[in-house]
Structure formats: C-alpha cells, structure tokens
C-alpha cells in the first residue's frame, strides 16, 4: 500500500505551505506536491477602494517585499491616472527598488541559505541555524545584518519608512531625496559592496566544493522569464523576455500585455496558480523566474563588478545555468548590482531634483504595473470606474511565477534523497531547501503565535494517517 508523507507547513517559508510526499507500494517516492493553503484575498479586499490608495494598501501583503508591491502598484496607478512620472521620480523609485533588492537578498542568503551551505543539509538542527552561523563566523553574521539594515535604511531615507510606505504615488513620488540622505546612502555603499562580495565568495566556495550535490539537487532544464533593457539585467522597467532551455529567445513582450502571453492553471490541491506561456500551453509553457532566470536572460549587467560576476556565472554552463542551488549565487550577484546601481543613481544630476510628481491626470480606467521583485516578475493589474474606484484587481505574484519550478524541484529532490518511509531530518531538510532556494514569499498570511509548527504526517494511499510528528 502506498504511503503519503506530509510536511506541514514548510519551515523558513512565509505563509502556509505543506509538502506531501507520496510513496508507492515499494516505499519509493512516486510524486511530491507543494500545497499553498493560504487563500490570497487581497484582490477582493481592494475592490471599492480608490485606485490611488493601492500603493499604500498592497505593501501590507508582505513584510519582506512591500516595496515591490508598492512600486508595481504605483506603476499601475500611473497608467490608470494617465500620467508619466518625471525623470527624477523614476530615478528615486529605482533607488528604492535597489534598496529592496539588497535587503531582501541579504536576508535570504545570510539567514536562510547560509546555515545549509555552511553546515550541510545533514548537520544537527541545533547548530544548522543563524545562531550556529554566529558561533562559527560572527563577523559574517554581523556583516549580514549590516547589509540587510543598509537596504532598509535606503528605503527609509527615500520613503520615510522601512515598510508600508506611502511614498510612490500616481505620477511620481511624494518627497524628494535630501542631500544629507544622499550622502548618508553613498557614505556606506562601498563597505556594503565589500560585504556582498564576501557573500559571493562564500557561495562560490560552497558551490564549487559541493558539485556532486549541486548537480544532483533539482537540476532541471526550463524556460526562463524576466525583464531586460536592451539585453542588460533590468529590475524596474523594460520588456519581458522569455528564453528556452537552450538560451534562445522565445518571445519578448510589453509587460502590460501579459494576458496575451501568460495563462494560469489551477489545481484542486493548492490555492496558488501555475502561470505558463500561453502559446505553448501546459505543461510545455512552464518557466522559471527570479535571480537565476534574470541572469540567464541578461546578456550583460550595466555595473562593472556585477558584470564581472555575471561572466563567471555564464561560464558555469554552455547555455542557461539550470541547477536550482545556483539561485543562491545569482541572488548575491543581483545584490551587488543593486549596490552599484545605488551608487550610479546617487551620482545622477537629477537625483536631488524636486521635480518629482506630475499631477495632471485623467482616469483611463485600466492600468498594469510590472516589476522584477526579488522573487521574480510581479504584475499588478487594476480596473476602475470613471471615478477611479477599483472594480477589479488581478495580481500575479513573483512566487506564483515559480510555483511550477518549486513543485518540480521538491519532487526531484524527494525522489533523489528520500528513501523509504523512515524519513530523516536531513531528508526533510533537503526537501525544504529545494523550496527555500526559490525564496518564496507566501505571506499574505498572518504570523500569530502558534501558527507555524512543522508537522510531518505519513498516510496511506487512501489518506489514512499512519504516523504524525511535529518539529518546532
């Protein structure tokens, strides 16, 4: 009789997720499912609100990537309002976005990924955590916190808040950057670049020394999707490009036309939909997003240090780099780019300008905003009535774009590393690590005490529970 193992919810992942590992009659993994049980209700929650409220409402979807929602929302609202932000406002929004990229990627690498990388998947859970990191490398841990804090400070200097800002508005931003804030941001950036480079060294060293694991761990071909700007890595604005598993361009399109290119599949075992490339259908049209995808798509990076790292990244494979664990490396290259780009923006002659908002608006009734969030391509699509009251909202969130990839990665890792129903801590941790590599954020959820234990259930093929244990 086949058995089913459920990991519920996945640890170190925002929101509510369960993993069910289905065993066959010979106790081998036959199929693994990633279930997202938390229903996203923000679309309905937003109906009836004025469109210009959306940039301050939608950041509450998430405490980790509020800036991404804030900016995607503001871009959608620009279109709804029929207004183009002045150049200084666009520069400031870009800088805010870079702060977000830096803080989010720093948090993920140093506090979620590095315990696995430094101690190994089979290490005692008592040391395989951030406290263990502090014990073996306190300097790195302190630097990690400084980098995360720096990204947060960039956001605060610009928007006045580290989260839940009310700064980007239809047609621009509500406050300029002061000279003192610009100087403060610039004053620390060189040190932060050094920290990002230190992180890259840690990642490259581990990836280089553990090629046997890297090549066996959710290494699979796929298409990749992300923004570019004439071939350069782009995170704020540009056409969306899709490449195939060999690196050939499949299509490039205006993000506003996403419904012509992206379709979502639903499954009855998860609330999170599965986006795919419409023209190729399901499942041939599945793709991956986020750092690995963006670096596979980009021909070059406009900042010198990150571009040098991109060359090293590209040298890893003939075509796209496919192994899931290289997300960690790609993520840090993007953090380096974000820091260099902050430098570039700080030196732009328009960065201190007070020409930051275009107030001449006319309601168009529809607007789409797209941005490359730390976790991938993020769409906000708003419909309004003639007065600007929201009538319909559609969000395709970054994590959703990687839903197929995460599910596939979990399935591959389970089949490779889970042997029989006697599941060990190391096996479970590998399955979780496959999800964590994509840095998913499912946090329209709550965080109240008592909601996040890890429960593993073993059930037979009929759903009858055979065994259950809880990991905290």
């Amino acid at each position: 009789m086949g058995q089913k193992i459920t990991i519920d919810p996945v640890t170190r992942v925002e929101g509510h997720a369960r993993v069910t590992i289905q065993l066959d009659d010979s106790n081998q993994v036959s199929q693994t499912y990633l279930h997202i049980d938390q229903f996203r209700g923000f679309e309905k929650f937003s109906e009836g609100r004025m469109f210009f409220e959306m940039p301050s409402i939608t950041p509450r979807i998430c405490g980790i990537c509020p800036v991404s929602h804030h900016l995607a929302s503001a871009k959608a609202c620009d279109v709804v309002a029929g207004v183009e932000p002045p150049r200084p406002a666009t520069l400031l929004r870009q800088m805010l976005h870079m702060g977000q990229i830096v803080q989010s990627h720093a948090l993920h690498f140093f506090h979620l990924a590095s315990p696995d990388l430094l101690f190994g998947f089979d290490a005692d859970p008592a040391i395989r955590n951030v406290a263990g990191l502090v014990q073996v490398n306190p300097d790195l841990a302190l630097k990690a916190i400084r980098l995360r804090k720096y990204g947060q400070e960039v956001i605060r200097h610009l928007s006045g808040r580290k989260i839940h800002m009310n700064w980007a508005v239809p047609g621009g931003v509500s406050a300029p950057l002061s000279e003192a804030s610009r100087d403060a941001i610039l004053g620390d950036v060189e040190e932060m670049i050094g920290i990002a480079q230190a992180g890259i060294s840690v990642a490259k060293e581990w990836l280089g020394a553990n090629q046997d694991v890297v090549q066996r761990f959710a290494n699979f071909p796929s298409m990749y999707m992300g923004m570019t700007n004439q071939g350069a890595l782009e995170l704020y604005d540009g056409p969306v490009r899709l490449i195939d598993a060999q690196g050939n361009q499949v299509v490039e399109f205006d993000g506003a036309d996403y419904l012509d290119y992206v379709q979502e599949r639903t499954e009855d075992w998860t609330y999170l939909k599965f986006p795919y490339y419409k023209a190729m259908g399901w499942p041939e049209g599945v793709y991956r997003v986020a750092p690995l995808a963006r670096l596979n798509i980009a021909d070059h990076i406009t900042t010198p240090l990150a571009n040098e790292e991109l060359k090293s990244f590209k040298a890893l494979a003939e075509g796209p780099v496919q192994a899931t664990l290289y997300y960690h490396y790609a993520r840090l290259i993007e953090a380096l780019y974000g820091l260099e780009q902050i430098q570039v923006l700080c030196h732009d002659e328009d960065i201190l300008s007070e020409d930051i908002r275009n107030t001449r608006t006319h309601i168009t009734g529809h607007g789409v905003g797209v941005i490359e969030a730390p976790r991938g391509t993020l769409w906000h699509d708003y419909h309004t009535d003639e007065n600007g009251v929201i009538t319909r909202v559609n969000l395709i969130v970054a994590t959703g774009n990687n839903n197929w990839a995460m599910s596939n990665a979990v399935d591959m890792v389970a089949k490779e590393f889970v042997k029989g129903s006697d599941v060990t801590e190391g096996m479970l941790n590998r399955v979780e690590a496959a999800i964590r590599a994509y840095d998913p954020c499912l946090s329209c959820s709550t965080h109240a005490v008592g909601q996040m234990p890890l429960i593993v259930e073993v059930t037979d093929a009929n759903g009858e529970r055979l065994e259950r244990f809880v990991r905290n």
Partner: protein
Amino acid sequence: MSVDGLAAKSLLLVGYGNTSRRDDGAAAHILESLLLRLGMSPEVIGGDDDIEPGPGLKVLFLHQLAPELAELVAQYDTVVFIDAHVDGAGWAPLCWQPIEAAVEAGMVGHHLKPSVVVALAESLYGARPDAFMLSVLGHDFNFGEELSPETQTLAQEAVDRLVQVVHDHGRRPV
C-alpha cells in the same frame, strides 16, 4: 532615579503583526491605545516608525520580526514583544510570559520568533535584556482592519498591563 522613586530601566515595546488581517494586527491597536493613555498621538503607528514617548522608552510596530531588530533589542534593559496568538497555542487569552533566548533550525525565516531575536542580541552583541511576551488571543484573522469584539476586550486589558509595565520601569512620557 526616576518617577515614584523607582530605579529607571530602559524599556522597548515591540508590537508586530499584519494590520490588514484583523486580529493579527492586535499589537498595533494595543500600542495606539497605549500612546493615547500616555497622552501622545497614535497617528504614527502602522508603519515601523520608532516612537519615543520619553527617555529610555521606545515603542515600535513591525509587520514581522527580522534579524536587524537584535541590535536595537540589545540596547534595552527590558523588551516586551506584543502579538496575537491562535487558539490551541496553549496560552491564556491574555498571556504574559518571559522569553528565553532560543534558536532552532527551521525557525529562521523571513519572520523570526522573539526568542530568536533575543538570542541574536545575546550572541551578536553580548546583551541579555529581560524579554517578555504579551499576547492576546485572536479570534478573526480574515481580511479587515478592525479587531473582533472579543480580541478588542483583551487588547484593552493588555493596554492596562503595559501602562503598569511602563510605570514599573520608572518611565513617564515627557
């Protein structure tokens, strides 16, 4: 020495939760009421702005706890984390309990537990503040910004408790 002859100890109040998920945002409502009781405007609660009602007393509200909070926690004698909890957590409806520094694999996420923040304050900065959890039972975690009536009642009891804590620490707003 400070008010009422008490030895003044610095006090940090950290509320966290999602204010768009009703009772999950209970801490924001609690801190707003506290600031009103202390004679301050609560308008700034809702982001993660730091509010200093008086010397040695800081109030902040966060969506969720993150590692960099450890640096701030390390600067205070006492830290009180304020949250909501779900039924079945084994806690009293109005729960006040000490927090011990603790870390575990699998609890190191985008959202840290208070015990992890305290552990980081100790391991990274050598500080061992007295840390406590003040939590109210949540009844409704759906989308919305108002508290459920049951949790609203508990929230007012939590405010009373915090007012006492502020007083016990010899703190008074200026």
